[in-house]
């Protein structure tokens, strides 16, 4: 499955009410490290297809959601389970690192 686009409008439906866990990449166009993370997120969407919903949220256009979750640095990649943020990964990281954290959080 390809990665999704989350917004202030669809966040409650797509993320908070989701039956499957959701990985949200908080990003912005001007953020250089976000450009490094972006293709990794797209790969994770494919790798975890069926197990995890994966998408991006542009913090410039969706400031309310970013603020609600205290995002103060991007990229911040947050894993939501049952509507709650259970893991926040701040700053660009390797794909392996994201996988390690996702696997641990999904297993718990």
């Amino acid at each position, binding site marked *: 499955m390809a990665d999704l686009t989350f917004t202030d409008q669809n966040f409650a439906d797509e993320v908070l009410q989701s039956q499957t866990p959701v990985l949200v990449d908080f990003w912005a166009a001007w953020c250089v490290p976000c450009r*490094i993370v972006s293709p990794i997120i797209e790969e994770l969407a494919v790798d975890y297809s069926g197990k995890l919903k994966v998408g991006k949220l542009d913090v410039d256009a969706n400031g309310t959601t970013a603020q609600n979750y205290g*995002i103060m640095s*991007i990229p911040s990649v947050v894993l939501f389970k049952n509507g709650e943020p259970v893991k926040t990964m701040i700053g*660009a990281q*390797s794909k*392996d690192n994201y996988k390690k954290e996702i696997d641990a959080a999904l297993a718990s």
Partner: protein
Amino acid sequence: MYDVIILGSGPAGLTSAIYTTRADLKTLLIAGVKWGGQLQLTTLVENFPGFPEGIQGPDLMLAMRKQAERFGTEFIDEDFDSVDFSTQPFKVTVAGKTHEGKAVIIATGAETKWLEVPGEKEKIGRGVSSCAPCDAVFFRGKNTIVVGGGDSAMEEATVLSKFADSVTIVHRKDSFRASEIMQKRVLENPKIKVLWNSEVKEIKGEGKVEGVVLFNNKTNETSQMPIDGVFVAIGHIPNSGKFKDIETDEAGFIKVHDHYKTNKDGVFVAGDVHDSHYKQAVTAAGYGSAAALEAERWLEGMEAS
């Protein structure tokens, strides 16, 4: 088997790659997850020759990378795990895979030196930052401090002042070491104040930054200051920790022997990982070219023998 493996993708590593590939040496560059080095975290670079109007740091790095790619440099955008310089060929392991090279150029640069005070580590990304161009937008209408007195502290403060309500530079001495032009920009900015002779002793707050404990080293007074953001710009630590057999000084800067050689024959060094004096994009690029030329000469000697 590569002729040269370059570790690092800042101005030093990329310039090395441009030179080695143009010398027809088969080159692998381990760029790291966060490729491009410190310039990826800056805005306008005004002192790199050839750009009279300045150039954005990330644009400059992308241009250097394209130039290195054009001549055939192979890139791996992962961090390396370990190196083995004990026998020829040298080995570099990245994501579980081992690559072999006859010569190595270490250009791993330097990374943010944090304050190492209570409350800092757990609040990185939650109000503690080392990159104003990345994070300043989240401090719109907020009050912030910048810790440091060099060019990067001046840049952090200038960038932050476009978003934050107030920016206070906290500096432990009574004068800045930053260049005159950068200092002037800060001191003339009505949004930026300076606290001289002051040190941050603790960062307070639950889950995010809410204040700092300051110590004035002239009066020995301790005070509290409510604050939303702490931007740390007190310098950099050389990335030399993964090289067990390479000599460094006490601060971790790799020791240079006779023209960019390390203590290990066939291992060369360029850029901020050995340079504690200049730390400029243009000097790093210069070191990169010098190390590449030395590596080329060394490889010629190796073939001849």
